[in-house]
């Protein structure tokens, strides 16, 4: 009744091509942005930022990155944890080598460095496909973790091999270290999320994105119609790694503050990101957010209900959490194999016809 295209007239091609063709969608989008930037920063505290919002935002960036590679370009990657580590260690080296560099530049440069590493590990994708590529990226994961453990230069020869984010500021506000205002950290990450998600969305609608999708759908056919697989695959690896590198840099410097490569960026992180992409929906920007939200927020929510509200023992709650999240993943994959994004799409289709579906 309210959610429909009738009466929403488009008179130019640009209007016809916009991301949100429905008025209600546009209003919702701007409302979320407004709330995110102007309301949330004033009502949050340390707990909300450190335990809920920062991980959600940072994993959203990483999930968008992996979604570009896996969802849009069809290249399965199990190396995302390793690429996040590249971003984290790049940001650490940049922060300690150039203390006066703005954190914005540090994060972007970390992403760029990760993009270069991603291109190198993406080269085999021109020859190998599917499961075999997954194994090759798995090698990247183990190689990178091993390297950051082994080469002491990466952690500035510290005794323990831990990296610690020193205090750095952006526009006079502390963004890393101990004395960070919760709203500053939140706004910093939110800005990255909005810009990167906007860029990703538009990239996937552009020439580049269509090439990726052509490669994903059938690479031989894509080659015949003139898509250069070298350019398409490597650009997907580069862009994806850039996103994942930015996420890794933020995860280490803003969210955790200290990290150890085996624990923070191990193989389980690669799987976590892949789960987020699959649960959220392959080839969907909204799905990346939904998947990240599901995998990050749901366990916290369950824990707070079971331990905080019901007063259960912490170990029982933790075990139940595994059971419930695991069962939900299976149920989702059976009921809606295309992820939360497809569920959302179906809901919207239904809403257009509501309340008179016939």
């Amino acid at each position: 009744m309210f959610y429909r295209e009738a009466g929403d007239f488009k008179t130019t091609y640009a209007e016809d091509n916009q991301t949100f063709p429905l008025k209600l969608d546009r209003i919702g989008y701007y409302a979320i942005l407004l709330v995110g930037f102007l309301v949330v920063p004033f009502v949050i505290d340390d707990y909300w930022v450190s335990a809920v919002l920062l991980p959600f935002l940072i994993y959203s960036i990483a999930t968008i990155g992996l979604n570009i590679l896996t969802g849009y370009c069809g290249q399965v990657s199990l190396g995302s944890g390793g690429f996040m580590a590249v971003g984290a260690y790049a940001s650490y080296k940049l922060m300690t080598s150039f203390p006066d560099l703005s954190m914005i530049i540090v994060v972007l440069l970390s992403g760029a460095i990760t993009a270069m590493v991603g291109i190198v590990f993406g080269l085999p994708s021109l020859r190998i496909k599917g499961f075999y590529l997954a194994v090759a990226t798995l090698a990247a994961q183990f190689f990178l973790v091993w390297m950051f453990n082994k080469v002491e230069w990466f952690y500035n020869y510290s005794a323990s091999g831990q990296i610690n984010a020193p205090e750095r500021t952006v526009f006079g506000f502390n963004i890393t270290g101990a004395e960070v205002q919760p709203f500053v950290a939140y706004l910093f990450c939110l800005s990255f999320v909005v810009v990167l998600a906007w860029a990703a969305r538009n990239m996937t609608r552009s020439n580049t994105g269509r090439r990726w999708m052509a490669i994903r759908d059938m690479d031989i056919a894509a080659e015949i119609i003139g898509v250069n697989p070298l350019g398409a695959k490597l650009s997907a690896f580069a862009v994806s790694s850039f996103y994942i590198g930015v996420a890794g840099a933020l995860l280490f410097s803003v969210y955790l503050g200290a990290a150890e490569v085996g624990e923070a960026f191990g193989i389980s992180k690669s799987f976590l990101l892949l789960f987020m992409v699959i649960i959220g929906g392959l080839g969907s920007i909204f799905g990346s957010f939904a998947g990240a939200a599901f995998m990050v927020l749901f366990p916290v929510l369950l824990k707070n209900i079971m331990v905080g509200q019901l007063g259960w023992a912490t170990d029982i709650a933790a075990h139940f959490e595994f059971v419930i999240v695991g069962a939900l993943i299976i149920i989702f994959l059976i009921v809606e194999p295309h992820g939360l994004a497809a569920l959302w799409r179906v809901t919207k289709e239904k809403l257009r016809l509501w309340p008179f579906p016939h």
Partner: protein
Amino acid sequence: MKLTKFAAIAAAALTVASPVLADLVFPSLSYRTGPYAAGGIPFADGYADYFTLVNERDGGIGGAKAKVVECETGYNTEKGVECYESTKGMGALVYQPLSTGITYQLIPKTAADGIPMHTMGYGRTSAANGKVFRNVFNYPDNYWNGASAIVNHLLEINGGDIKGKKLALVYHNSAYGKEPIRTLEALAEKHGFKLTLLPVDHPGQEQKSQWLQIRRERPDYVAMWGWGVMNPTAIQEAANIRFPMENFIGIWWSGSENDVKPVGMAADGYKAVTFHNVGSDFPIFADIQKYVVDAGKAAGAGDQIGTVLYNRGLYAAMLAAEAVKKAQAIHGTKDINASMMRDGMEALEITEDIMAAQGMPGFGPSFKVSCENHGGSGTVGVQQWDAKAGKWNLISDFKPTDGDVIGALIKEDSMKYATENNITEGCN
């Protein structure tokens, strides 16, 4: 409509219900799940049981009830952050994360929030320099004391000369396992022994190649920095290559019943360094039986009492409770806050009499904390596993470690941290 309602409920549930401010809150960032649960459960049980005992028997600490708030970390640093943020608003007095990774994360956070952290025998070793790490304490012992104690023990059994001997270090390839390397390298130079480093990756079930290397290089002694499943695996591998167990020495985190029992009789003679006593032959255990176990208030399954790691949790809680008493005495109030707790910890003095009064005579070393020295006495004992009797025996007193080597390294590492983070050294 349904969706917004659900979102509202979800938002309400995400916000932690802040409980009524209890008198003395001790958050316990425990891990009863995950790959390191076997070590996390007994420690958390011991920590909780001691405070239950104090509440039931003495009516609290100095008249104020103690409350333990548990939060499950699973030894995971991200969950550790969540746990810290969700408990710090409850009036938390002291954090004991039992994880080196989480410790590193919490060092700047606790400094900003003014909450002390006690990392007993783990964490960042250079936190012993209280002039830089104002809020972090690691008394009575740190990893570098442990490393030095292992070397001292080797000196002792070799009549004071280990020149030309070979020592292999099998370590968990993480911040935790890497901590002793620097000290061992310095000690190798000083005493002229040869050090071989053998990293084992998380979680540590796969050690065939490391032990093959040991078999080939035939080191005289093997030291181990392991945790969780890595420990029994290493001891089993050592037994498989018939490495003499009395030449195999673990750090205190590689010396619990969980580590030796799976190997059976072959583990007989395995040694580990320790900073507290073993067994349940202390008066306090009668009280625990009476006030905690028989009253049905034991934490967890209640089957860990008297094990090495349970005793360690008990000891950690005892030290925390003594620091509370000290803080209450300094500030003249029974309801102390985190910064008063910090003062209490910095003025803490543990003597034989205090331990005996708690029913734990000779349970740990006697030591004194000061602003310059947050590390305590640094005295370490050695325990040995008796597989026939199925128990650990303390085979050496708590003996001093090489303060010259360790002190210089602590100074170097803490000053590096101070310059990186713009901290000016000082006691005020």
